C-alpha cells in the first residue's frame, strides 16, 4: 500500500492539481502550486546529487577491489573530489563560484576543452559515415541525400558565392517542405506526449515503480 499505491495517488493528485492551475485562476491554487513547484526544484537538484553519489560509489568500489582499469577509476574519484573541494573552498572564502575563482578556473581549462573536444570527434565520424554508409539505396534515401546536399551547399557562404540560387533553394527547402514535415512530426509528438501524460496521470504508466 505505502510502497506502491501512495506514489500513484501522489502522481494523480499532483498531476490534476497542476493541470487545474493552468485553467483556474484562484489564489489558493496558485499559492499551493507555486510551492509544489519549488519542492520539485529542490527534489530535482537532490536527485542529480544522488546520481553523482552513485558514480562515486561505483568507481570507489572498483578502486577498492582493484578491478580492471582501477587506476582510471581512481582518476574519476580524485578529480571529482578535487572539483568539489575547490568549489566548497571558493564558497567559503569568496562566497561565490564566479569569475576569478578556482572553480571557474577548473571549468575553463579542464571541463571546457574536454567536452568541446569530445563532441568535436563527431565531425570525424560524420565524414567517415558519409563515405561508408550514406547510400542512395532507394528513392527515400535519394530524396534525403539530395535535400541534405542542397542544404549543405546553400547554407554556407560559399554557396552564395557560387550562385545566389543555392541559398535561396536551401532556404526554400527549410522554410517550406521541411517546416511542413517538421510540423507533422511536432503535432504527432504532441499527441504522443498527451497520451503518455494521460497514462501517467491515470496511473497506468508507473515508471517510478521500476528500478527496485
Amino acid at each position: 500500500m505505502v510502497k506502491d499505491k501512495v506514489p500513484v495517488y501522489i502522481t494523480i493528485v499532483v498531476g490534476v492539481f497542476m493541470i487545474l492551475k493552468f485553467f483556474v485562476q484562484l489564489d489558493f491554487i496558485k499559492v499551493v502550486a507555486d510551492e509544489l513547484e519549488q519542492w520539485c526544484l529542490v527534489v530535482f537538484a537532490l536527485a542529480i546529487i544522488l546520481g553523482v553519489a552513485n558514480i562515486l560509489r561505483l568507481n570507489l568500489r572498483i578502486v577498492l577491489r582493484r578491478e580492471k582499469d582501477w587506476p582510471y577509476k581512481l582518476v574519476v574519484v580524485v578529480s571529482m573530489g578535487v572539483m568539489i573541494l575547490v568549489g566548497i573552498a571558493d564558497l567559503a572564502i569568496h562566497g561565490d563560484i564566479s569569475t576569478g575563482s578556482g572553480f571557474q578556473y577548473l571549468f575553463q581549462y579542464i571541463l571546457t576543452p574536454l567536452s568541446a573536444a569530445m563532441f568535436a570527434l563527431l565531425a570525424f565520424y560524420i565524414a567517415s559515415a558519409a563515405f561508408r554508409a550514406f547510400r542512395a539505396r532507394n528513392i527515400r534515401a535519394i530524396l534525403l541525400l539530395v535535400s541534405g546536399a542542397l542544404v549543405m551547399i546553400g547554407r554556407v557562404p560559399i554557396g552564395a558565392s557560387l550562385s545566389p540560387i543555392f541559398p535561396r533553394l536551401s532556404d526554400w527547402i527549410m522554410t517550406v517542405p521541411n517546416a511542413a514535415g517538421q510540423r507533422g512530426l511536432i503535432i504527432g509528438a504532441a499527441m504522443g506526449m498527451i497520451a503518455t501524460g494521460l497514462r501517467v496521470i491515470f496511473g497506468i504508466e508507473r515508471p517510478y515503480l521500476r528500478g527496485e
Partner: protein
Amino acid sequence: MQNVKLEREMKSGGLDKRWIFLAVGALVLAFLKLPLHLSYAPNQKTLGVYKAIEGLPSGSIVYLSADYGPSSKAELLPMHRALVYHILNRDLKIIASSVWDSGPPLIDMVFKEVCEELKKQGKEKKYGIDYVNLGYKSGQDVAIAKIGTSIPETFPRDYLGTSVNQIPLMNGVINFSQIGLLCNLSVGSPGARQWLQQVQTRYKVRMVAGVTAVMAPDLYSFYQSRQIEGFLGGLVGAAEYEYLLKRPGFAMSGMNVQSLTHFLILGFVLLGNILFVSEILRQRKAKEMKSTST
C-alpha cells in the same frame, strides 16, 4: 591479439577509417586561416533576431537564457557574444540565467569579455544595473515554467549569492510582463522548445533564439507559426549575425573552412555512392555471367 585481428578487419572492410579522419583534420588545420572573401546573405530568420533587438525601446529588459554547455560552445559562444554585444550596445538591459548547470560560467565569461570591449569604445556597463547573472536552476521544464510565473521567486539570489531585492536591475521585475524580449540560446532539451511551451505561448512573450545547427530545422515550423520572431541556426547563423553587426568574430573566421569541409564531406558521399553503384553493377554482371554459363 584480438586488437590486431580487429584492425585487419577494419582495413579489409574498404578504406581504413583513419585515412578519412586524417583528411578531415588536415583540411581544417590547413585551411582555417585561408583568406577567402565570401559573400553573406543573411536570411529572414537571422534578420528577425536583429530586427527584434533593434526595435526594442531603449532601457527595455531582455531575458537571456543560456541553456548550453562547453560541449557546444563552438556554435553558441560566438552568437552569445554577438547577441550580448548588440543588446548592451543598444543600451538595453539583460537578465541572464540558465537551466543547464554548465551555463552560468559561460554567461559570466561573455559578460566580462563584452563589457571590456564596450569599455574600450567608451561605454561602461555595470553589473546589477545593466546586466545580471542569475545563475543556474535545476528542474528543467519545471524551472522554466516557474520562471514564467515569477522570476524573483525562482531566483531569490543571483550567481554571486546576492539577494535579488538588492539588485537595482531586478527592481520591479516580477514576471515576463516587465520583459521586452525573451532570448534563448540552446542545444537541446531543456531549451527553445520548452521555453516555447512553458513561457512564450502561455504568456505571449516575444521570443528569439540562437540554437545549434542540429536543433535549427525544428524551429522553422515555430517561425512559420509566428511563435518565434527569428533565430540563428548554428555557426552560420552566428556568422551572419556578426556580419550584420559589422563585428567579425570567431564565427565569420570559421566560415571559409566550414564551406570547404562541406564539399569534402559531399565528395565522400558521392565517392561512396559511385563505389556502391559500381559494386552493384559488377555483382549483377557476375550473376548474368553465372546464369549464362549454367
